[in-house]
């Protein structure tokens, strides 16, 4: 119906994260198209999602480290139907978890590949790519590396 598909694509109507004090830095870095992880100085593990306590050892001695943005596909699914109207987007699309080379596994979506299981393999190398959805928020998605 629309004669301006490009304009339609630019209008993001989906859910927008509301950063919290402990995740402000994460989202600021995403806006700069960098992926940063929380890192525990006590057990020397990076972890996801960003929070003020290490989920591995309950230490509050945490800092931030820049991630390489590389990892491998840990699992995925292809959404053909949205049962609840809490998310709108073009169908089908690929949701996934990516295991980063730094260790943590993070939820994301996969772009740059057909949403067809024959083209998507668990274990395949992927790298981060950012999608600017608002002026302040960019989502870390992943594409085949």
């Amino acid at each position, binding site marked *: 119906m629309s004669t301006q598909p490009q304009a339609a694509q630019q209008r993001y109507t989906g859910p927008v994260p509301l950063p919290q004090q402990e995740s402000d830095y994460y989202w600021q870095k995403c806006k700069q198209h960098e992926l940063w992880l929380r890192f525990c100085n006590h057990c020397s593990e990076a972890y996801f*999602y960003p929070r003020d306590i290490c989920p591995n050892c309950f230490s509050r001695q945490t800092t931030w480290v820049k991630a390489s943005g590389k990892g491998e596909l840990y699992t995925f699914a292809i*959404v*053909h*139907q949205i049962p*609840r109207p809490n998310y709108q987007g073009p169908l089908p699309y690929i949701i996934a*978890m990516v295991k980063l080379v730094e260790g943590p596994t993070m939820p994301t979506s996969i772009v740059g590949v057909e949403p067809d299981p024959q083209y998507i393999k668990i274990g395949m190398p992927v790298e981060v790519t950012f999608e600017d959805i608002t002026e302040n928020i960019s989502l870390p998605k992943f594409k085949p590396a």
Partner: protein
Amino acid sequence: MGTLSRQAAIVGVDESDQIGRIPEKSSLQQHMEASYNALADAGLSIKDVDAVYCAATSPLTIAEYFGITPRHTDGTSVGGSSFVIHVAHALEAIAAGRCEVALITHGEAGRSQRRSGGADMGTPGAQYELPFGIASPPMTYAMACTRYMHLYGEDRTRQAMAEVAMATRKWANLNPKAFFYQEKMTFDDYHNSRWVVWPFHLPDCCLTTDGGGACVVVSPEVARSCRKKPVWVLGAGEGHDHSMISQMPDLTRTIAYLSGREAMRTAGVSHRDIDLAMIYDSFTYTVLTTLESLGFCGRGEAPDFVAEQRTAPGGDFAMNTNGGGLSYCHTGMYGMFLLLEATRQLRGECGPRQVQDCKLSLVNGTGGNLSSTGTLVLAAD
């Protein structure tokens, strides 16, 4: 909990007046009808109730609506498994003398309720999963299933999912209350159905229906004065190990590996003693991973375990005999309905779908994103 074994019994269960598509009724009405009916089934009055248990809805709301002043309350709300866990908590409270008649109630207009906007976008789930379209259980469970397929084989997992969907439908065809009572299904129907979230076909996913259910748990003394024979709580276990799917420690094993072990240990029974397994089937895959987590078979072995319609009517492993969340009813928090069916089977009330000599049932509820489980071992009087 060995000493708590048989210290409480289920004496009344029922659904709301109707389940399925009930667009005109609220969740509270579903709560009320189910509780009213379950108390009648028990032969007890609302005046006998001295403890209220519910999830999602506040116990304050329920007690006020019912006009009661409980001396014991439990609002544990950890997803669809909550009511199974409530039974264990009621057992503990009754044994401790905190109450005598616990009313566990559920009502949910899962199909028809209007949802309001204004979600909190600051939660971890809203920040890190929802914006990527990871937005509901079919999506989160599907990602766990894909991982399982990767580890244990896509084709045999697919076949096992079809086996579970088919077997459960056959049970529903024997239950007049089931949503799909009159609708038969074939393997071709399964494989030709549309995708909801790959790798889930439509029949891999539970229903979304309206309805309520309630369950009355009482002390042994009260149990002897009730209308029907008690169903005894022999053992219980519970646990949870994450909330968001991306935080699940092991995508192909639920915490039932602990709650099941604890329930069976405290009941003093083993797997081969179980006559009926009531396994929360939010998705066909949930059944596979739960059977393994509970130890009915080893990891990656569920596809062999459920092969050749073993869990269907006439098979040698009776499971989800009400037709399950897949084909009977699923309001959103289905765990309550596991309790209803286990109780009815142990009382011998199930007519054409009755499991012969049903003495012992294992009930396992799963809630959240494969997050929480509650396991019970229930016994006939």
